[in-house]
């Protein structure tokens, strides 16, 4: 009998969290973009925020299997937290502002999660959508604080670390700031999904009944995961509001929630880097399609989605993984 840990399966499990060399690529590309395209940093900032938002969705959808159409509720909660605090002159410091955005979004996630996560499937999907619609309407009605349909613009955001101004025309500060925040959140999510907790989330995704039968507190785990994901989405929303000095009802809308879902499905869910690939693919594609067919560019995107849904359920990264996988040799011990 061999030592158990010598077994390839045990070694794979013991080492799967190790950093692989290719994992540096997205970060090097993001840094390269900063130097190569100084005129497109506005686009780059938007892209990085989208990656962060998609990453928050990957945690709940890709790992825990919570099907949600309401993720923008937390993005909006974060964005309005930053927006209202800045507009009222209560809080304009960006980093602590993000922490407040995360806390508010997490509170919304915890509150709604405690109710929503009693349900599953279609009911859950509809309830997440309803929660978001309720928040959107509340923001619309609370005109005095949120600016209603017009939103809040020209938000006074204090310089980063007291030194670096957010300049809307030359968003160099914004780009690097978002990149650093994305990196920190990514490290957090990556640590989480490779932990025993992350493993139990996969278990819940794969078979909830069995998780009950092994004694796991399933609902508690789901609510915790949902809350953490909400906090990250709140950071994405908060940083979006800071970078644009602007917040509007669109941050809470179905458009944003559906787009991030499309991005994650396009890139590949439950794979961490699907958020990156999906966001880049989606934003580049829509950019060029809009140039070629200014009136009907969404048609091309729609067709692509149909193809992905029919033939590549696991998105672009799923295709890459399938190409890279040779037929597994049958293990004989």
């Amino acid at each position, binding site marked *: 009998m061999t030592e*158990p840990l010598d077994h390839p399966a045990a070694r794979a499990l*013991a080492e799967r969290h190790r950093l692989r060399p290719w994992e540096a690529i997205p970060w090097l590309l993001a840094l390269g973009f900063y130097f190569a395209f100084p005129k497109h940093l506005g686009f780059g900032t938007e892209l990085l925020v989208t990656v962060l938002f998609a990453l928050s969705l990957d945690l709940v959808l890709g790992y825990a299997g919570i099907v949600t159409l309401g993720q923008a509720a937390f993005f909006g909660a974060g964005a309005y937290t930053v927006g209202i605090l800045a507009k009222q002159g209560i809080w304009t410091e960006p980093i602590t502002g993000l922490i407040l955005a995360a806390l508010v979004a997490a509170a919304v996630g915890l509150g709604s999660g405690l109710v929503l996560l009693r349900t599953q499937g279609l009911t859950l999907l509809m309830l997440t959508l309803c929660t978001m619609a309720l928040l959107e309407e509340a923001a619309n009605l609370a005109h005095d604080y949120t600016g209603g349909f017009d939103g809040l613009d020209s938000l006074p955001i204090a310089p980063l670390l007291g030194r670096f101004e957010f300049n809307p025309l030359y968003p160099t500060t914004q780009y690097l700031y978002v990149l650093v925040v994305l990196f920190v959140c990514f490290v957090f999510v990556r640590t989480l999904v490779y*932990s*025993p907790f992350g493993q139990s989330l996969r*278990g819940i995704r794969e078979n909830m009944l069995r998780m009950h039968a*092994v004694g796991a507190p399933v609902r508690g785990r789901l609510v915790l995961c949902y809350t953490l994901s909400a906090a990250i989405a709140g950071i994405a929303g908060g940083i979006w509001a800071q970078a644009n000095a602007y917040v509007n009802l669109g941050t809470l809308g179905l458009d944003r929630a559906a787009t991030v879902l499309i991005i994650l499905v396009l890139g590949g869910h439950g794979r961490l880097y699907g958020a990156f690939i999906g966001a880049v693919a989606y934003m580049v594609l829509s950019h060029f399609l809009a140039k070629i067919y200014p009136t009907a560019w969404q048609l091309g995107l729609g067709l692509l989605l149909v193809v992905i849904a029919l033939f590549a359920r696991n998105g672009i990264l799923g295709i890459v993984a399938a190409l890279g996988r040779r037929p597994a040799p049958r293990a004989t011990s």
Partner: protein
Amino acid sequence: MSAPLLETRALCRNFGALAAARDIDFRLEAGARHALIGPNGAGKTTFVNLLTGVVQPTTGAILMKGRDITGVAQAERVKLGIARTFQINRLFRRLSVLENVYIAVAERVGAAPSMFRPAGVRRDVVDESMQLLETLKLSGDAARRISELPYGRQRLVELAIALALRPEVLLLDEPAAGVPSAESHIILDAIDGLPRDIGVLIIDHDMDLVFRFAERITVMVSGAVFATGSPREIAADAEVRAVYLGRTGHG
């Protein structure tokens, strides 16, 4: 006399007008090899769901080692030592065999809530999972996904997950169901090899399996206990033969 490992007293469960469990008095002793048989719809699976806490009884009580656990939630009963397998596989299909067992071991030893250390750092959990796979002769498949395994091997993983919980009471719901006869010896051997201190209740239709394995048999009909006795007594019981064994064309 000490209290039995698991006991039910006048356990009843109604689904609307249907009495799925009627006044069930049942005892499972420590280290028992007990079988529960009965025709389709006799309430066997409802009884398992009552014991594991998936379904709450309408009236009656469930006791473990003399302690009333009727109101104890499913997850808590697992911690108390009640584990089960399912009639139809409920596995983590897109995960490896090792990961399937890891999840169960991690829950038992309390490693699962840990969020900031990699799963592989818990060598104790990985080691124990691997050792369990060795005892069930599954280690050759440890790296394969469940969906790549033949059904018989999947049934073994079903058993491995339950054993990973180190149960005192093990409820096996038709452990060999759906397994081709060429592979069923794998399951039977594994059941024969179960640790002797576990109290095992096996629910099955397969008379060969039941009579090979059980030291005590309970027959259920229409939600109620019809007869309990040794395999010899049950096989000789004319009424049991009439309502159950006779119908299946056995004996």
